[in-house]
Every structure is written in C-alpha cells, then in structure tokens.
C-alpha cells in the first residue's frame, strides 16, 4: 500500500495546526421507538482519509451514516462541515454540501444507460439532452479517478461491481467530496473488492474523504486509515494506522468479548453417499438455470457451494429439497430417488433444509416458535401442541434462543434468534432423523456472536455424521468450513477443490467465471 499518510490538505481551508475535519458529527443522539440507535456519537473524517465505521448489525452504523448524508435528522447533537455547523434536512442538502452516500442496494434505473443514470437528478440540464456530450462529461469524471466505465452501456447489462462503480461515479459527478460507502463489499467477488479498493485509493489521493461502513474485519484493516467501532449505539473504540491493527482487538471492541470464529475442519473419514445428484438440469421459462450438475455429499462431510448470488444456488437447493422438479437428471437421498416426489417425501428420507429466506419461507412470521416447529413435522388432525411444548422449551434452552418462551412470535425474534429457531427445528429431525442438511447462507446478516454459534452447530451436525451441503455467498465462510468446495457459475459447477488446499484467488476467479478448469 502506498498511501499511508493523510497529510493531504488540498481543501479550501488552510487553518493553522491540524487540518479541519471535512465532516464531523458531534454528540449525535438518535432514538427510534424502543431503541437508542446512536448515543452521543462523535465521528469525524479528514480530507483524503478513509475512516471506517465498524460494528455489528444494529450497532448504529447505518443510522449514523444516514444522518451524515441528510437522510435522517439527529435528535440532538450537530454536524459540521469544514468546521462550520450545517443542517442537513435531506439527501439533496447533503449533496449541496458535497456529501453523498452509496447505498448497499443500488438506486439505479436498469433500463437507462450509465450516463443517463449518472446525470439523473442533476438540475443543470438543458431540456434537450445532448447524449454524446453527456457521455463525454461522465467519462471524464470517471477517468479522472481511474474508474473505467462505459457511459453508453445499459445498467441492466452490467455486473454488480460495475453498477457499484456507476453509483460512485454518480456521486463524484454530483460534486461529492465525502463519500459514504455502506457495506460496499457485501455484493462483490474478491477480484471486484480489490478493484474497489484501488478506486478508493485513487479518490483519497485526490483529496476525497471516504466513510467506509463494514462489519468485515479483514477488509477494514486493509482499507482504513482510522477505525471507529460502534456497539449498541455507542462508540467503543478508535483505532488508527493502516495494517497495524489487530483484528482480534477490533472484534473484541465490536462484540464486547473474545470470539473464536475459525472452525476446525473435520478430517475424519467420510461415510457413505447421502446425497447423489446426477446430470441435474433445470430450465425456467426457456432459460437454463442449472445445467448438468453431478456431485455427491457423504455422511460426515460438508460440501460448500460458492458462487455469486443468482448463479443457480437457490434453485439447486430447492430442487434437492423437492420444491422444484428438475427438467432432467435425478436427486437421490440416502439411496432413494427423491426427484419429483415433493418436499415431504424428501424429508421422510432424512432431508433438512434451511433456506436462505428465513422469515417467509423457513419460518412463518406471524406464528409462534412452537407452531413454527410444527411446520415441517407430522401434525395430527387436531394439532397436538401440548405434546410439542416440552420439546420447544428444551430447544429454546439448548440453542440459547432469546425468546419469552414457545409462544414468542417468529417475526419478533432478532435475525440470529430466528436463524437458531430454524436450525433447531431442522437439526432436531422431524419426519425422520436428519441425515442430509442443506443450508443456505446460514450466517448472512447475523452478528458475530450468532455466527459463532451457528457455525459450531453446523460443526456438531457434521461430527454427528450428517451430510451437509452449505450454499453461501460468503466466500470466507465456505472456505473456512467446507471439506470440499464446488463453485457454481451460471448454473454449472465450474470448479472443484478440497477445502484445505483451496486458494482464495482460484475460487474467486471461478466465481467470476474466469476459469473453467477443474470441471467436476
């Protein structure tokens, strides 16, 4: 890394002593019903600096960022820009002060071109748009920061990483001096993350300030000049100095205790084949979603499916679970054919399925924990809740689910606790003892503490001899847990590697569709 100093002071203010903060928040308090989202938070970012807001989900990072860009107004406290107090009543007011946010979920019009998206919302346009002139202007802005974009391309055709670049160019085009990037790496493959970080450096070198919002420790250490850690709405620590930071220290500040995330890979000999998939293909509306997929999962083995979202993961899981009938090919669970037999048959063969969508698919939001436990079980004509009650109490205790009891409504559980309910149900067996566990993004959106628990549960299930298919967009997770890794790209398995010797670069390249060797 070249840019380690932040003495860049190209800003208009040349005051004596330290450069004034480009943007600072002073004793910000923001309350939502029942939650103190920000409790006198101080934060500042200098020109040419990357200052990261680190914290778990619900720590208050996004709330603070929303106030910094004018989306919310603080209940008390104030914001200064170059030392002067400002009121940000709307994101437009934020833009007038040169503050722009790049949201996690992009706000682009897919049918518009890149240039059209970039100029959207600008007020200095003439009635008749001169397309080529606009495209030149957009290109000029993009190139000055080393952000290559094709201004004439339709946004709908772009990859996620390219779309993010369009959002950044849009912010720069609108004159942003301070960019707030909300979880920018959540949607990117490793190569794109690297590219993004290069862009960030280019921007800081040009004197822009970056507020980087993340909960991923590794990247935070890599990119940040300074880190502010938030927990439960309060600042729990400041750390400065790029690359010198200890991730364990940051994790402790973030969670409030020591955590252990690295799981040991089970290296015990694997048993018989529990899941056998042969030549599986699926077409939806004439489009091939899965093509010619074949693989096995053995008892006591965890196979990880890596891939960028939308490459057929959901369909693969649904097909194994009997929710979708494949166009051709077969699925066998514990040696018996389960293709076209429906979800109940698959469960009778020993399947358990934790879908990616917890509330709404895996759990019924308006129902109690108890009723949700019954969802995948054999219910009698008159539902006998009394006999399930003791088990519900036991599972709540065993899985350390924070709930008022079995009657607690699923919707009112936190993300981590909802996931634990789902895992508790699926791991405890229903129509038959669980032999095959299909889990999709099991830790997505969970805080570090819950991730730790969920991973330990998966580990236990594997040790108990269950076959596990782990489908996740979180590459770190797949890499650290799986005994074997398959990469799914555009519905095909393009790469297979043992978990121990897996290389981040190779798997990452396969996820991006750059490699076709190692075909399974």
């Amino acid at each position, binding site marked *: 890394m070249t840019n380690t100093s932040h003495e860049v002071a190209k800003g208009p203010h040349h005051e004596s002593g330290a450069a004034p903060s480009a943007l600072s928040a002073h004793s910000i308090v923001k309350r939502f019903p029942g939650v103190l989202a920000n409790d006198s938070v101080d934060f500042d970012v200098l020109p040419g600096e990357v200052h990261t807001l680190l914290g778990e989900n619900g720590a208050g990072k996004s709330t603070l960022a929303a106030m910094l860009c004018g989306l919310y107004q603080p209940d008390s406290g104030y914001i200064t820009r170059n030392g002067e107090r400002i009121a940000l009543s709307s994101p437009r007011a934020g833009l007038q002060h040169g503050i722009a946010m790049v949201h996690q979920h992009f706000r682009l019009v897919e049918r518009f071109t890149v240039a059209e998206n970039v100029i959207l919302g600008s007020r200095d346009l003439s009635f008749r748009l001169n397309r080529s002139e606009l495209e030149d202007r957009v290109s000029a802005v993009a190139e000055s920061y080393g952000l290559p974009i094709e201004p004439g391309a339709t946004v709908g055709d772009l990859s996620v990483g390219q779309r993010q670049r369009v959002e950044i160019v849009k912010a720069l085009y609108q004159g942003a001096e301070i960019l707030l990037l909300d979880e920018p790496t959540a949607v990117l493959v490793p190569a794109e993350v690297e590219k993004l970080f290069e862009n960030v450096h280019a921007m800081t070198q040009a004197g822009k300030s970056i507020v980087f919002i993340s909960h991923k420790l590794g990247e935070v250490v890599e990119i940040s000049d300074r880190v502010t850690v938030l927990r439960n709405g309060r600042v729990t620590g400041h750390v400065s100095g790029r690359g010198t930071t200890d991730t364990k220290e940051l994790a402790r500040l973030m969670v409030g205790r020591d955590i252990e995330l690295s799981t040991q890979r089970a290296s015990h000999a694997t048993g018989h084949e529990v899941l056998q998939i042969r030549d599986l293909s699926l077409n939806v509306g004439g489009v091939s979603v899965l093509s010619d997929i074949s693989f096995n999962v053995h008892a006591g083995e965890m196979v990880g499916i890596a891939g960028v979202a939308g490459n057929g993961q959901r369909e693969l899981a649904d097909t194994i679970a009997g*929710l979708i009938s494949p166009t051709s090919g077969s699925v066998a669970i514990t040696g018996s054919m389960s293709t076209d037999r429906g979800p109940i048959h698959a469960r009778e063969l020993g399947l358990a399925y934790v879908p990616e969508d917890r509330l709404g698919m895996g759990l019924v939001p308006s129902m109690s924990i108890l009723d949700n436990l019954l*969802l995948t079980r054999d219910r009698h004509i008159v539902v006998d809740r009394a006999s399930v009650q003791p088990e519900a109490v036991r599972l709540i205790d065993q899985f350390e689910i924070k709930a008022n009891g079995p009657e607690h409504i699923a919707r009112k559980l936190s993300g981590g606790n909802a996931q634990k309910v789902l895992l508790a149900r699926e791991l405890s067996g229903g129509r038959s003892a669980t032999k095959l566990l299909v889990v999709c993004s099991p830790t997505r959106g969970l805080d570090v503490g819950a991730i730790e628990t969920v991973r330990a549960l998966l580990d236990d299930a594997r040790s108990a001899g269950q076959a596990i298919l782990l489908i996740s967009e979180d590459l770190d997770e797949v890499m650290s847990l799986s005994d074997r890794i398959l990469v799914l790209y555009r519905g095909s398995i393009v790469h297979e590697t043992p978990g121990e010797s897996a290389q981040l670069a190779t798997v990452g390249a396969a996820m991006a569709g750059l490699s076709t060797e190692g075909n399974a």
Partner: protein
Amino acid sequence: MRSPIRIVFEQRNETPKYLSTLVPLISVIAALVAGGLFLLATGYSPIDTYSNMLSDGFTSSRGITDTLGLSTVLICTGISAAFAFQMNLYNIGGEGQLYLGMIGGAWAGLALGDRLPSFVMIPTVLLLGSLAGAVWILIPAYVRSRLGTSEIVTTLLLTYVAASLVDHFVYSPGSFFVTKNSAFPQGRLVPDSASLTAFGDTSLYPTFFLVALLALVLYWVVKRTEFGYRIQVIADSPRAAHYAGINANRTTLSVMLISGALSGLGGAALIVGPFGRLDPGITLLGYGYAGIVIAALARNNFSAIIVSGILFAGLRSGGDKLQISTDTPIHIGVMLQGAILLFALGGEAFRRYRIHAVRAERAAQ
C-alpha cells in the same frame, strides 16, 4: 421560516391487547356521535332517536328477539366472508351464494314434500342450501386455485347471475317454485315438515343457536386443527407453505367452498325460518354484503362475529322500526352501519401506528 406541526405515523412493533377491544368500541361510539350530529342538523333529536333504536333493537323483548332472529343470517354471511378473508381470499359474492342457498333449500323442501319427518327434512334443507351455495362458488374457487383468477371479480359477477336466477324461478310461468296458476310472483311455502317453529310469537328461530355454535366450532377449527394450521401458514406466507409441502391449491379450493356453503346455509336458514319460501325480496335486503362488513368489524374473528352480527342486526331492525314509530327516515340505520364501518377501518390506523404531532425541523439554509 415557520415550523409547521407535522403529524407523524409511527409504526407499532406490537399492538397492545386493550386496543383490539378499545378501537372497535370507540369506532361504534364515534359513529353514533357522527350520526347524532347528522340527526341534529336535520332537525331530529339524537337522544330520542337513539333511545328508540336501542329499545326497538336491543332492550325490549320484542326488539331483542327480532334482532337475534335477523342476526342468524347475518352471522352466517359474516362467518362465510371471514372464513375466506382469513386466507386472503376475498369472496365478496356471499350475497349470490345466499340466494342459491335459498333456492337449494326451497327446492329440497318442495321436492321432498311432506313425505319425510321434520328431523330429517330440516337438516336436509339446510344441507342442500349449503351445497347450493358451495356449487355457486365452485367455478370461482377452481379458477382461483388453478389459474389465480381474481375471486373478487368472479364471485361478485356471479351474484348478479344468482339474482337473475331467483327472478327466473319466481317470475317464469309454471316454475317449480311457485303455485300453479297463481298470478302473484311469490314462491310456494315449503311444507310444515321443512319449517321450524319460532320461539313463542317472536321471530327467533332455533337456527340462531345452530349458527352461533357453528361460529364457535369454526373458531376452534382454525385455532386447533391441522386444516386451520394450513390456512394460517398459507395466509401468512405462501412460500413457507410451499416449503413445508402444504398444498395451497387444494386448501384454497376447500376454504372457498366452505365459505360458499356458509352463505348458502344462511339462505337455507331463511327457508326453514322466517321466509319459508323463495322470496324475490331477498335481492333487496343485502344480507350477503352485510356479512362483509360484519366480518371486517370483527377482524375475521369468528366468535367476535356473533357480537358484530347481533350489533348490525339490532341497528337494522331498530332502524326499520323507527320509520314506523316515529317519522325518522329509515336510512338512519343504514347510515349508522356505514359510519361504524368507516370509523372501524379508520381506527385500524390507531392499532397499527402510534400517532403524534411534532414540530417540523427547520430546513437547511
């Protein structure tokens, strides 16, 4: 710059229990107040009008028995609507299914004649009426479950067909349902074996208790049985139902058929009870449509429908009598029903949101 007061709706995480009772109660009171203002403006005394209505609808023995008698059919159409609504199936054709229930019930009564004893005839008439109601919703139910065709449109349109069917059976010469060679457009009375006797000289029939019991049974079915469990899962989250292997198509079909049968039962109850014949006047009374309102006011809770059904019956029969006892226009009862519904729906906002006023913050610069 001025800083105006802004009303802020803040979504509640949880609706307090007391609000579920308080909101409907206050809605009724607010409707009465609004109706009172209207009465005052048109030169009637609200106090006198309401006390007459109260007495004619609820507190006098004549009034309460008339109300309970009328509530029988309203509870039927109310539970019919609620049974479908709870699964987000909007059967608004209860009116037409009610007509079919009358046709089916009257047919059974007339066709079987006096050959069978009462204890066989009465259940047969009620059953055939329910069956006819279910048949009337069969096509909407089938296309809804297979093709997703909007049941709102199909059930509503079939109501007009059902009304024409009633007219056809009553007005066409030589119809099975009318007395031969009679010029009077009115159905034949069903035989005595197919008629229940009212209590004393009231218009309250034993069917009231049957229907109230049925509402409680449905309550139990939804809360306690596997069928009810499936309904709840599908209503809340069709994808969770698919995930769990619950057949949503079949459940949709069953729920809609049962909903149709319940409205049909209401029609058949009129045959064994107060009407005794296929009466073309039924198409003017709107009992089926009232069921929608009754279900909405009770928020699809089957036991609460007994209460809201009786309340509506009282307003209606009390309102009807006002016309006779005083010169207050008959429409005051109808107006109050509408006002109650409006206030009840408006009251939903208070259940879902905390509402408070704040001073808008000053805009930048």
